[in-house]
């Protein structure tokens, strides 16, 4: 198994009779990976398995070559911001982060310095001396992020990290994730708000009913599902004429003229033939302003894959 990847090999987890995840085969390289799916899809189970909070009933997991059953080594290089909202009653934000750092064996002074740095990264220095129990949902989210970040882990696992954040903090947090991923770390986050991850992720893992329904970079995932039509939005001066020409020359399943926008929404089963045809029509003098894939976002993919709205 690669020491640079997070590897799931035929991993299954059941909670009694209830399926958590089933037969997961997954390799996650460095970069920003989003695990996407509706509630109950198995995202948190996958993350909890990765960090050793639960153990698989079948299969094997390795995080950069380390078993999650070895928390002593695993958690030294992994930070996990869980979705669990409760914090120890005694803890202020600062105590919460410092306490976890002390368990790494850092001296008090170093732990305090690292804690302040992490709290600053999470934008929480002003509220650091308040009890976590008195924090708003967004602040609790950020203090968990600070705790996960504080020891500068190689693998950062974040369960719904953008929940409850206001737009400014959300933008800052996303920028931080990108920066961490760009530095060669594994940043793995989960979300059921699909629009927020397709913009920031290097790759996505789509889950439904405890199984992975697709994985890879967004375009790659889209390529995997040939049987589903691709959707393009074309802006041009004569959308009705273009629609007629496309029906004649390309495998178009559906075309809809959007008069007010001067646009045509096309559904095709073969994007290669379609794009070649469109290029030929443009070259023949048809005035085409722009062509935009209309379904290369995770939401659309997800709808295709699981056959319902996410």
């Amino acid at each position, binding site marked *: 198994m690669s020491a640079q990847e997070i590897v799931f090999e035929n991993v299954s987890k059941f*909670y*009694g009779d209830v399926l958590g995840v089933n037969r997961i085969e997954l390799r996650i390289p460095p970069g920003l990976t989003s695990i996407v799916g509706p509630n109950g899809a198995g995202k948190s189970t996958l993350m*909890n398995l990765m*960090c*050793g*909070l*639960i*153990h698989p009933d079948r299969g094997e997991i390795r995080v950069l070559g380390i078993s999650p*059953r070895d*928390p*002593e*080594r*695993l*958690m*030294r290089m992994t930070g*996990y911001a*869980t979705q*669990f*909202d*409760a*914090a*120890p*009653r*005694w803890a202020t934000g600062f105590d919460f982060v410092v*306490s*976890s750092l*002390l*368990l*790494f*064996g850092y001296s008090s002074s170093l732990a305090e310095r690292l804690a302040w740095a992490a709290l600053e990264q999470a934008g929480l220095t002003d509220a650091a001396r308040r009890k976590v129990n008195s924090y708003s949902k967004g602040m609790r989210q950020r203090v968990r992020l600070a705790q996960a970040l504080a020891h500068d882990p190689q693998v950062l696992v974040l369960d719904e990290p953008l929940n409850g954040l206001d737009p400014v903090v959300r933008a800052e947090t996303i920028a931080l994730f990108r920066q961490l991923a760009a530095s060669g770390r594994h940043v793995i986050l989960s979300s059921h708000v699909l629009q927020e991850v397709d913009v920031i992720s290097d790759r996505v893992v789509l889950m439904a009913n405890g199984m992975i329904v697709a994985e890879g970079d967004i375009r790659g995932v889209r390529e995997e599902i040939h049987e589903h039509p691709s959707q393009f939005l074309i802006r041009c001066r004569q959308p009705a004429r273009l629609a007629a020409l496309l029906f004649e020359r390309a495998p178009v399943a559906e075309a809809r003229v959007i008069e007010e926008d001067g646009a045509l929404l096309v559904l095709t089963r073969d994007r290669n033939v379609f794009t070649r045809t469109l290029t030929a029509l443009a070259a023949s003098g048809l005035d085409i302003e722009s062509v935009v894939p209309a379904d290369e976002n995770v939401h659309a993919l997800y709808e295709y894959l699981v056959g319902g709205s996410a």
Partner: protein
Amino acid sequence: MTARFRLRQALVIARLEMKRVFLARRSLWIYALAMLPAVLFLGHAIQLRYELREARQGGVVAPAVIETVETGMSEQQVLDVAGKPGQDRERTIRRSSRREEQGKEIFETREVRTRRMIYFDGSRRAYLWFEDGRLQSKDVRTLLNFAEDQEVYAGVFQYFYLRLAIFFGCLGIFLNLFRGEMMDKTLHFWLLAPARREVLLAGKFLAGWTAASVVFSAGALVAFAAMLWPHIGAGAEAYWQGAGAGHAARYALAAVMGCAGYGSLFLAASLWIRNPIVPAAVLLLWEASSGFLPELLQKFSVLYYLQSMCPVPAPLEQDVPALLRLILAPAAPLSPTLALLGLCAFSALVLWGAAAGVRRIEINYSTD
């Protein structure tokens, strides 16, 4: 990672946990339980000291004087022997009597002059009851009986403190270490630390043991001091300089080791069984029956070792009902050193079992 590093981690965990255990609102009843004997002994001591002060104010006679006084003596004879009593009260009462005369019941009432004198010899009070100038009865009550107080303390310590207070106190403290955090949904904080699960177990056990030991040994020592208090100036100093300090230390040690024994059992139970109340009830029965278990099985009872650490055997009255006698009867005693080593080995064995439990623990808040 070195053993030294792991030990440091366990100490950090213990330090963080101790704050939670000591300051938890749900621990308040444990403090009350631990201090209950101290409150009772303190109350008894205050009452005794009040009675002693009152008795001493009336004067003290030699103990032999009380022995000299016998029923049938006249008031004057008693006054000649014993002098002026500490308390003296005279009054006249009307006494009715019935007799039969020629088949008829006749009721008669006559006036009787009574007098009650109380003498105090420094530890005993003699209540003398006179009717019509003659001593009718002599009731000698011991106010200060050190041996009896020591026995009472031994009884309270072994029958209440070890069997119930420490048992239920540890149930409250040690169940909360993992199960309580599972209920509060905060256990993941610890499981995400870069520490072996066994280190986490050791740290939490250390926190619970320290907290329980401080609370219960302090409770035992305060109660012991309260037991001694009224006897200061009447033998307590000599006792303390002789065996007393050792006795106090052995009671405190028994409390500390009781916390280790019961604590390890409840910690293990909380890791293996979702609802540990049923096993706690079974354990209570098991401990209660330790006195009449076969010798081999007695070794698997915490009480077996604890009773052997106590310096004074607990009293067991003859008129105690048979079933209760069976429950209260102590097991065959061990030497205190063997008892200490045995309980250490027993607790270590239970914690070894708990380590297997903590390795398999999973965060599943929704079902707990």
